[in-house]
Structure formats: C-alpha cells, structure tokens
C-alpha cells in the first residue's frame, strides 16, 4: 500500500504515515524505514503481543482522533476487514471495502471497488465525513520501492495506557496453515474444484503443474471435502492470488472463490457449459475433467 499511499499523498501535498501496532517492533521499523514514508507512528506494548481486536482498534481510533488524517487505508485482509469497520463505526465515518483502485480529486478520495462478481466497478466517495477510509485488496498495487535511508522518515512513538483485559480465551488450535506465500506469488496457477472426482485425478493436476511450472490451488469446497489441505485454498477465506494465468479445472466460478483471483487470463475446463466460470474465462473448454486430465497429462508427457 506504500506505493498508492505515496501517490495519493503527493497529489495532495500531504504526508504519508505508517501506523504500526505490536510488540518488539524495532526490527520491523528498521526494515520499513527504507520505504517512502514521511512518518512512522508506532505503539509498542507487551499487551499487543497477541492480536485483540478491541485493543488494536481502540488505539487506532485514539490515534486518528489525535492526528486527524484525511485518509486512512488498511489492507483488505482477514483482520483488516474486521478492524476497519469497527474503527469506521467508532468514528461514524464511511468505509469502502476491497478497493482495487484509488485516486484523489481535490481532497476527495475516489474509491473504486468491484460489485456483482467483478463485472461492475463502482466509484464510491465519502464526501461529508472524515477520515475517508478504505480497505485495499492485497497485491493490486505494486510493491513499494525502497529508497536510500536519507533520514527523512521520522519516528513517532505513541504511548497507550488504557487496555481492556477482558480477552478471549484461546482453548485450542486445530490446524496450522503452512506458509501459503508461494501460492500468492505464483505466476501460473492450476486450480481445482469440486468437479474432480478422485484423489488420483488430483495427483494428475499436481503432476501437470510440475510439468508446466505452475502452482496448484483449490476451492473451498474441495478443502472442506478433505481432498486437499487448507493451505491450497484460494478465495474469500483463503489466499488472494494474482497470477498471469489461472486455469480452473472443474470450478464453477462462484464469487466466494473468484474474489480471490485477480487475473485477466482465466482458462476454464468444466463439464457444465452453463457454469459461471465461462462468463469470466478467456479460454473455455466444455469437458469432464476426469476424462480430460488423463488425456492432457499423456499428451503433455509426449
């Protein structure tokens, strides 16, 4: 978000501040100082070691009330999507979710977000209240460029004294996700959905992916069926991916899955010619993947 934040701030001759809340932040701050922020505002406390929505959100609300920023941006992540509306509600201001484009026009933030399954884009503004808040979909803007540390980034410490101690009690963890970063950064993804009928066919997809240098992804349905580990899950409750090429095998293309796919080159193989996915696909093929895949793999091996 550094790149878009920088652009918006420059356009309005404003400053760009990064807010960090957590515990043992020094290493992070050193790392972040290299990016083009004007200020880093950080709140460091042992109480922030574990994420607690109210403590984090209250601190942010206090900070916003004190410094009165014109625009507040948060990542549209699992936590970002819960903390942002909480803050917006406390400040009684507007919040636009999942923006894919932002622009500034005479102090008004133009927020573009998808609607109706990404086929429509809506421009949303928040004209009367401040701050103008938006969550931004991960990876839609380029990563920040580092700059040499020329000492222009000022550090500001923010001390928090009021904490709620009425925590949730963590009783147990069920599954631990492995690092799904390789999927997030993949250039080519072969994704599999409910259309796949057997573990054997799933193995073929993995084999194909290796042959073609692709990563394998899956829909929630397949994960829930226990066919594949949760770390492969793409979509709303999984990872958001941004490949150059996305091939959907046996995926119907429901919004919960497709909202995690930021890709303009979507190919689809599905036995149902009326499947939603074909409306998005640049290349479509009506076929039963359980027949199609073995043929494809054989041909590819040749």
């Amino acid at each position, binding site marked *: 978000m550094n790149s878009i934040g920088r652009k918006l701030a420059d356009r309005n001759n404003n400053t760009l501040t990064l807010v960090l809340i957590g515990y043992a932040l020094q290493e992070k701050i050193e790392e972040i100082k290299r990016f083009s922020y004007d200020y880093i505002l950080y709140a460091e406390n042992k109480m922030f070691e574990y994420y607690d929505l109210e403590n984090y959100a209250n601190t942010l609300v206090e900070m916003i009330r004190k410094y009165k920023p014109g625009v507040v941006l948060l990542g549209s992540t699992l936590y970002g999507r819960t903390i942002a509306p909480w803050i917006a509600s406390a400040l*009684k201001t507007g919040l636009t979710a999942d923006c894919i484009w932002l622009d500034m026009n005479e102090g008004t933030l133009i927020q573009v977000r998808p609607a109706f399954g990404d086929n429509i*884009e809506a421009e949303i503004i928040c004209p009367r209240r401040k701050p103008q808040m938006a969550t931004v979909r991960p990876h839609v803007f380029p990563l920040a460029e580092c700059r040499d540390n020329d000492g222009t980034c000022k550090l500001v410490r923010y001390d928090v004294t009021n904490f709620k101690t009425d925590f949730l009690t963590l009783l*147990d963890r069920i599954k631990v996700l492995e690092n799904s970063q390789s999927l997030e950064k993949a250039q080519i993804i072969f994704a599999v959905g409910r259309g796949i009928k057997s573990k054997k066919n799933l193995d073929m997809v993995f084999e194909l992916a290796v042959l073609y240098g692709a990563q394998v992804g899956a829909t929630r349905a397949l994960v829930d069926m226990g066919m594949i580990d949760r770390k492969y899950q793409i979509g709303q409750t999984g990872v958001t991916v941004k490949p150059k090429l996305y091939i959907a095998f046996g995926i119907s293309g429901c919004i919960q899955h497709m909202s995690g796919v930021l890709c303009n080159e979507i190919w689809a193989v599905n036995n149902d010619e009326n499947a939603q996915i074909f409306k998005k696909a640049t290349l479509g093929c009506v076929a039963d993947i359980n027949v199609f895949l073995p043929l494809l793999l054989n041909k590819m091996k040749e």
Partner: protein
Amino acid sequence: MNIVVCVKPVPDREKMYVDKEKGVLVRNGADMVINELDYYALELGLRCKDMQKDFNVLVLSMANHNCINLIRSLYGYGVDDAVLLSDKAFQGSDTLATSYVLSCGIRKIGECKIILCGCESSDGCTAQVGPNLAQRLGMKLLANVLSIQYVDEKKIQVQQIDYQGIKIVEASLPVVITAVSSELKIRTKKIKFILEAQNKDVSVWNAQDIHADCAQCGLSGSATQVKSMHVKVGIQTGVMIDGDQEEKVEQFISYLKNGKGCNLYHQNFTDEGRTLYWVKVRLKKAEYGSFQNLLILISLMLYMN
C-alpha cells in the same frame, strides 16, 4: 435470553449476470433470496438453541416491505420470532446506517446476548455490518466463525478462522458472531414448523417503533455515496474450444504452449493505462446504450448497499 440472527434479502445471483458483449446487466426476473452466508448464521443460532432449549431465536432483517414473505418462510427452520425493519427512511442506507438501524432493532428486542450475521452479503460483499454492530452495541466480536462448540447463559466457545488456521476460543457473552461458510450442514425446513408458521406473523417495525433517529438512517445517515458505476464490457472475449475429446486436448495444449497472459490491466499502474482502459469501456457502453439497465442497477445498489 434472545439470540438474534440478522439476515439480508439479496437478488438471486444465479439468475443475474452481466452480458459482456452488450454491457448490460441481465436480471432474468431475479427474485430476492436470503443471503447465503446468513443461512450459516441461522444454523449457528439454531444449534445454540439445540444446546440450550430455553434460548429464543429471532431473525431480524432490514428490507423492503415486500420481502415479508421471504422473512416469514424462515419460520420453517424453527425460529421463534421474525422481525422486519421497514421504513422509507431506511432506503439507501450504507453499512454505517444499516448497522445503526439494526442496532436500534436489537435494542428494542432487548436481552440479546448473541447476535449472529453472515460474514458478508453476496451483493455488497463488504463484511462491515457485523464488526460495526459489535462496536455500536459494545459487544465482543467473534468474526469468521465456523461452528459453535458450547454455549450457556454466560459464555460461548466457537471455532474461528485466523491467519494460522482454525482456533477454538471462549468468550463471555454478549457477543456478535459473523459466520463463514463451513462444513456445517444447514438443516432443512420441517413441516411441523411450516404449519405452525401459518399462525405466526412477522413483526414489522418502522423508524418510530425502534426509536431510530432518521438523520442516522438511509441516505442522510450514510457516509458513502456511489458516484458512478461501470460495466466491464468487450475487454475479454472468451474463446471456446470445440471438437471431440482428443481435439479439445490438443487445442488446449497448443494454447498452453503459446498464449500466456495478456490484458493485465491491474498491472498497468500508470494513470494513462487506467484511463485508456476506461475510455475503451465507456465507448463500448455508449455504443450499446445500456443506460437504462445501469439505472436499475444503481437504484438497486443504493437500496442494497
């Protein structure tokens, strides 16, 4: 003790799609249905009742009055009461105003210790109303909940999604819970309940009934405004592969060998790239004269937002 399940009527997505060639939204007479994730919320609420028989499960919805039969149909699942918040003053509410109206309704119901809602709606997809409600009502928020393991008068244990996977947490009541789709099997309607429902009515409350301040409802209570809408058209024209099984595979492979990635407008970060893209879209739009459909859509979005 009351459990409130907030539900939202949304247009049936299955029957709606955007005709990319013509740049119009085809509605196909799409009916209103209950937002899918709200069924998971309802199921969680009913499971609480399964565990603690004396809990009352209510459904609460802010919607147009003509959704009343849709709300009534939820009695079939075994809910105890249904409330519809409906008033001209609520029209055009964004998430901020919507959660204000819902919180007024919840206060009027009273004794609500558990508020459930779907994590997000299929039309707005903002996922904001749940956290917003928690803040307004001063309750703990349990977001992205898969299932409820235990509940009593004082506390609740749930399975919740977080960055590391799934965790089981315990919270003291009251709480706001947002439900995500899960393995949970959603119960079917029971004839017994459907028959009982014939004698039950949906309470309809207006702004006055719930003591809502009209300045905080509807358009005047909304912080955000939809400035414009664009339909993406004509940018991608899909190719369908034809032929028999063998031919399909061969063609697919030749595509795999040649064509990788084009049209990556998300990566055209420059304003020029963006403008070019939109000029293209706008031209197409004018060409096909989809204005009327857009108007329908905008009015719909304003209401649903």
